[in-house]
């Protein structure tokens, strides 16, 4: 079956942002998303769940390229300054182009 190219947006962020990010992504129009609990270390230091909310999540969403860029721009404008957050895009091939 033929595959279609889409973008995969990956966001690694402190878990306090989970519900805000999901709200934003839905508002921007993603068809779905997936979240995993992770841990990590970056410019803002080690994040190991020391405190109930001090966790890190990894949120991914498959979407079309313009939406993916819009998401990244939105994140940069809204969260990059005050929160521990990292985001990147990559290319993926999917079946069912109309789903994403």
């Amino acid at each position, binding site marked *: 079956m033929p595959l279609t190219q889409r973008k995969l947006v990956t966001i690694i962020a*402190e878990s*306090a942002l989970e519900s*805000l990010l999901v709200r934003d992504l839905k508002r921007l129009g993603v068809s779905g998303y997936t979240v995993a609990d992770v841990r990590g270390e970056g410019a803002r*230091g080690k994040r190991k*769940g*020391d*405190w*109930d*909310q*001090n966790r890190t999540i990894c949120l991914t969403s498959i979407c079309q390229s313009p939406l993916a860029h819009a998401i990244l721009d939105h994140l940069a404008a809204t969260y990059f300054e*005050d*929160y521990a957050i990292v985001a990147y895009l990559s290319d993926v091939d999917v079946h069912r182009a109309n789903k994403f």
Partner: protein
Amino acid sequence: MFDNLLDPVVLCFVVGLTAGLLKSDLRFPDQLYESLSIYLLFAIGLKGGIELSKAAPGEVFLPALATVALGVIIPIAAYNLLRRLGRFSRPDAAALAAHYGSVSAVTYAVVIAYLTRLGQSYESFVTVLLVVLEIPAIAIGILIARMRTTPGGIKWGPLLHEVFLGKSIYLLVAGLLVGLLSGADRAEAVAPLFTGLFKGALALFLLEMGIITSRRMGDLRQAGPFLVIFGMAMPLLSGALGTLAGLLSGLSLGGTTVLATLAGSASYIAAPAAMRIAVPKANPTLYLAASLGITFPFNILAGIPIYHAMARFAHSFGG
């Protein structure tokens, strides 16, 4: 006071602290920590509710009012101290103020265990004061932060929802209601879990709290000497205010000790969660280092006997 240090609950905190400082790889699984929190909060509520079911209502009114007053006065005092003496930024000072106005349920559990061991009685409704004190300070912290930073409107809806229906308050209130409605007789069949095991579970929890606390102590250098001193002076000041409030609202010696401890304790669960979203410009390292790295161990190891002494001193006049 030396005797207090030999209580298993306090000793567990010390060995946990030591584990962290020695960099042992001992760590409780996340969900065990969370499960123990759920258990402790619900059990605190339930025990309070059962006690309350035996008490006369009405009695609680004056102390609750005094507690609300504490919940307003303490964060405002803290904010001003931090801004004027500490030269903290507005968001940082507001976020810290919210932490010191609110309470630590674990510290409450430890003071109750402390009084029980001494055979010192206290009012049956003190759990209500715990619930009452947890809420206003967080709202006031947000209010201060927002008034001074974002002139635009504050969305109170989601914030109040978060505070009132947040995990800890909900569990406390749920336990309180279950205990109150079912009463002592019906609750007897669930007592072995919630009463019998309470102190053991608290000891285990404090072992993990010691480890967590030790990690925050690493941030103290970043926090600076002012915050270290503040983290011990502020609880003493609040504890004194709490003692006064207890005396004036007619609480017994035991009840006054509890209220002083509540006033002297700082939140490290509800407040950080609310502040991270409501005051994003505030640096979480500062408020966690202060409330968890200094004030929490200070209260467990030294504060509680001091508040008890304060209450005894006050009652030797007032009583």
